[in-house]
C-alpha cells in the first residue's frame, strides 16, 4: 500500500503561529524589496532606506512618529475584527476625529492647554464614533456590507477636509502639497521626550497605553468574552445569549472612536492642524497591522512599529523615483502572505496510514464546517 499525502481541516478558526507570521513578514518584505530594487535605477536605494529608518536619529524619530497613528489604526481595525467586522474606514474616522478636535480648538482656544487637550481628545473619540455610526447601524440591522460603507465614507471625509481647508478654515499661507488649516493653540502640543538624539512624542506613549488598556479589558472583563462569542456565527451568539447585533454595533462604534482618537493624537503630537497630512494611507496600513497581529492585541505595537519602518523606508526613497504609494503594494503583499499563512495553519498535512489503522474516534468528521465547505480533498 502506498502512503498518500493529503490535507485535512484541523482548526477552522486558526491563525498562523508566531513563527509562521515572522516568516510571512520576512518573505513579504523580501518580495517588496526586490520590486523596489527593480523599480528604481538609482544606486544605493538600500542605503537610503537604512538612513531613513535605523541609520540616523532623524530616521528613528520618524519611525516613532509614524508608528503613533499606525498602532492606533491597527487597534481600531483589531477591535472591529473582535466582533467579526472589517473597519476599512479608519482614514475617514481619523479625519473626522481631527475635524471635531479642531472645531473644539478653534472655538474654545482660550482654555488652558491641558484642559483643551482633554476636550479635543473627547471630541476626537466622538467624531470617529459618529463617523462609524452609519456603517455600524446598517451592518447590525440590515447586514449591509461594512467594507463598502466605511470605504465610501473615507472619500466623503477627505472631501469634507477639502471643503473646510479651502473654505471656512482656509489658512492664509497654505502649506505646500497639503490641504491645511492654521495651527491649533500651541498649548495643546504634546510633550516630546528626548532619548539621546532621538525624539519620542507623548503620542506614541498614549498609543501604546491605549493598546495595553484594550488588551486588559478584553481579557479580564466578561465583555471581551461576549465580544468574541458574537464574532462568529449568529446562531452561536444567540445560543450563548449574546446579541450579535448589539456587539457589532458597540464594537464598531468603539473601533470608530479609536480611529477618531488616532486623528487627534497625531494632530496634537505632530501636525497641529486639521490637514490632509494627518493620514497617508494610515487606515489601510492599519488593516495589515491588525491582520499580522492576529488575536494578540499587544502584538499591534511591534507590528505597528514594523510598518512604520516600512513607511519611513519608503519615504526615504521618494527622490530615488519610488512612489509614496508603493507602501500599499508592500501592505498588499503582506496581506496575501498572511492570508496564506492562516490557511496553512488551518490544515494539517497527513501522511495516510495503511487501511484499517484508524482509531474509531477518527471516523467522525471535525465538528465544524466553517463558511468554507471543508472536506478532505481527494
Amino acid at each position: 500500500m502506498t502512503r498518500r499525502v493529503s490535507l485535512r481541516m484541523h482548526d477552522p478558526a486558526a491563525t498562523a503561529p508566531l513563527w509562521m507570521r515572522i516568516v510571512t513578514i520576512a518573505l513579504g518584505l523580501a518580495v517588496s524589496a526586490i520590486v523596489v530594487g527593480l523599480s528604481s535605477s538609482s544606486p544605493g536605494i538600500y542605503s537610503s532606506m537604512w538612513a531613513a529608518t535605523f541609520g540616523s536619529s532623524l530616521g528613528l524619530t520618524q519611525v516613532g512618529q509614524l508608528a503613533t497613528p499606525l498602532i492606533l489604526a491597527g487597534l481600531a481595525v483589531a477591535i472591529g475584527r473582535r466582533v467579526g467586522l472589517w473597519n476599512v474606514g479608519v482614514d475617514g474616522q481619523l479625519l473626522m476625529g481631527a475635524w471635531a478636535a479642531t472645531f473644539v480648538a478653534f472655538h474654545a482656544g482660550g482654555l488652558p492647554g491641558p484642559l483643551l487637550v482633554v476636550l479635543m481628545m473627547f471630541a476626537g473619540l466622538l467624531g470617529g464614533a459618529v463617523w462609524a455610526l452609519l456603517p455600524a447601524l446598517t451592518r447590525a440591522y440590515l447586514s449591509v456590507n461594512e467594507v463598502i460603507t466605511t470605504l465610501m465614507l473615507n472619500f466623503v471625509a477627505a472631501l469634507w477636509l477639502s471643503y473646510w481647508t479651502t473654505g471656512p478654515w482656509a489658512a492664509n499661507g497654505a502649506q505646500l502639497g497639503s490641504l491645511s488649516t492654521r495651527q491649533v493653540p500651541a498649548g495643546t502640543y504634546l510633550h516630546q521626550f528626548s532619548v539621546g538624539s532621538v525624539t519620542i512624542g507623548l503620542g506614541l506613549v498614549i498609543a501604546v497605553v491605549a493598546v495595553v488598556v484594550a488588551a486588559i479589558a478584553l481579557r479580564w472583563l466578561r465583555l471581551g468574552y461576549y465580544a468574541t462569542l458574537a464574532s462568529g456565527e449568529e446562531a452561536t451568539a444567540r445560543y450563548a445569549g449574546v446579541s450579535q447585533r448589539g456587539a457589532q454595533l458597540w464594537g464598531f462604534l468603539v473601533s470608530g472612536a479609536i480611529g477618531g482618537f488616532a486623528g487627534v493624537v497625531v494632530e496634537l503630537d505632530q501636525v497641529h492642524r486639521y490637514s490632509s497630512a494627518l493620514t497617508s494611507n494610515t487606515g489601510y496600513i492599519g488593516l495589515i497591522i491588525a491582520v499580522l497581529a492576529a488575536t494578540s492585541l499587544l502584538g499591534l505595537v511591534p507590528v505597528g512599529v514594523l510598518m512604520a519602518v516600512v513607511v519611513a523606508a519608503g519615504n526615504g526613497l521618494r527622490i530615488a523615483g519610488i512612489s509614496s504609494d508603493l507602501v500599499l503594494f508592500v501592505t498588499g503583499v503582506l496581506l496575501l502572505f498572511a492570508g496564506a499563512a492562516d490557511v496553512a495553519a488551518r490544515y494539517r498535512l497527513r501522511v495516510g496510514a495503511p487501511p484499517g489503522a484508524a482509531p474509531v474516534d477518527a471516523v467522525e468528521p471535525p465538528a465544524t464546517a466553517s463558511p468554507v465547505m471543508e472536506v478532505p480533498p481527494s
Partner: protein
Amino acid sequence: MSNPEHHPAGAAPTPLGGSEPALEMRGIVKRFGDYTALDRVDFELAQGEVHALLGENGAGKTTLMNVATGIIDADAGTIAVGGREARIRSPRDATRLGIGMVHQHFRLVRNFTVAENVHLGLGGVGRLVSRRELERRTAEWSERFGFDVDPSARVAELSVGQLQRVAIMRALVRGANILVLDEPTAVLTPQAASQLFSIIRGMVAEGRTVVFISHKLDEVIEIADRISVLRGGARIATLPKEECTTVSLARLMVGHEMKEVRPRPREHQGDPLLVAQGLRTGEADRRGALKDVDVAVLGGEILGVAGVSGNGQAELAQVLTGMLKPAAGTVRVGDRELGGAGARAFGKAGVGHVPEDLRIGLSLEQTIEMNAVMKVVEQPPVRRGPFLVRSAIRPYARELLERGGLAALEVTRRAGTLSGGQAQRLVIQRELRAGNRALVAVHPSRGLDVAATQAVHEALLDARSHGAGVLLVSEDLDELFELSDRIAVMYEGRIAATLERAAFDREQVGLLMGGGGR
C-alpha cells in the same frame, strides 16, 4: 459513449449486455487523511435488481456510491460498467455511463425552479433555453414518469417527498440505467416511503437497476432483491433477501445483536419543570411554525418528540430554550415565567440545550476551556463583578472534560479542533451541568458511532434519574422508543398525540407522523 440527449429521455433503456453485471467495483480504497473510509471493497450490481447497501452511519455506504458516481475519487480499485472497464473521474463521466445518484439531501439548487434543476448540467454550452421551454419539457417528463410536480415551483418551497421526486426525475432525464438512492426514506413517513417503493418497482419493471442505501432493516428486506452489508468501510456480506431476517442483518451490520426495546417503569413522577402553553411562532402558514402547542416536561422523565423533520420540532426546541421568541404563548421554567426571554435567561434558570446543529453550541474561535464555561460566565466562581476570573475557568473545564471522558484533551486547544464526537460530549456535559432543571436535546446522537451514541444515551438517562426533565427530539424511532417515558408526535406544527410508554406502537407513531391515526 452516447450523449444523454441522444437517447430520448424516459424511454426504457436497453440492457447493456446480457448477463454482464451492470456495475462492478473491485478493491475500492478511499482514505480521508488517516481515516480509511473504504477498505478494499468489492461490489457487484446485477442488471435489473434492487440492491440494498446496508450499514450504520460511517460504514462507507455513501462513500462507496460517491466513488461510483464520480463525486469523489477512490485511492485504489477498478470500476467496470456493463462489463467494460470505466474511469469515473467526475459526475459527468458517471452520467455518460448511465449512473445517476439521488443524494440524501437531494443536491438541488434551492433558489432554482424545478425545471431549472432538472435541466442543470444537461446539454452543451451555449444552447439556448427559455424559461417556458424548460418548463414545457419538464412538464412532459413529469407526466411520462408519473411524478406530480409543478415545473415552475421554486425548489425551496417543495415538500420533502416532492424534492425526492424532482431528484429522481433529474437522474432519469439524464438517462440513468443505474439509479443510486442514498437513504431515501430517512426523511419520509412510513406511508410516503411505501409510495417511493412503488416508484422503485416501476423503474425496475422498465429495466433499470437500483441501489438502495439504508440502515433500516425492515425496509431493506421489503424492497431489495439482494443486500450487501458494509461495516467499518469493509463489505461483510452480500445475500439474497430470502436468506435474510432482521435479526441476522442486524448482527451483520452492528457486529453483535441489537438490544431489544425493554419496558421500564417510571422511576419518579416529578413536578412539571418546563411548561409551555399556547405556543405559536412566525407566520402561521409556514409548515414548521408552531400552532397552539402545549407541552409539559416532568421532572425525572424523558419526553420524546417524534415527527418528520420540518413539522415544528426544531421550533419547539428553540422556543423552550430561549433561542426563538414565540409570537404567542407562555413558557415557564419551574415557577418562573420566561416567555420572550433570551437564551441566557433560560440557561440561568437551569435549562440545558443540546442544539440540533453542533456548530452553534460551540464558539470555534475560542479555546475548549472558554467553551466549557459558556453557560456559567454569569455565575461565581467564574464571575466576580464585571471580571472574568480566569483562574477559576481551567479547573471547571477540566472537571467537565473528565466527566465526559475527555480528560486527555488539552483545554487550551481551540474548539474547532474537536472531532464531532468529542464536541458532542463536551456540549452534552456542559448542558447537563447547566441544565439541572431541564435538558432539551435535539438529535443528540446524530452522526455518532455506536459507542458514542451509547454514551449520549447514558448521559440522558443519568439526567433523568437525577430528577431533571429531558425533552428529546429525534428522527430515530428506535432511539425514542428505547429512551422515552412518553412520546409526543408532531405534525404540521401541532402535537398530534402524546403516547405513554406502555402504548408505544411503531405503526401508530408512523401514522401520526404522516398526519393520520387517531
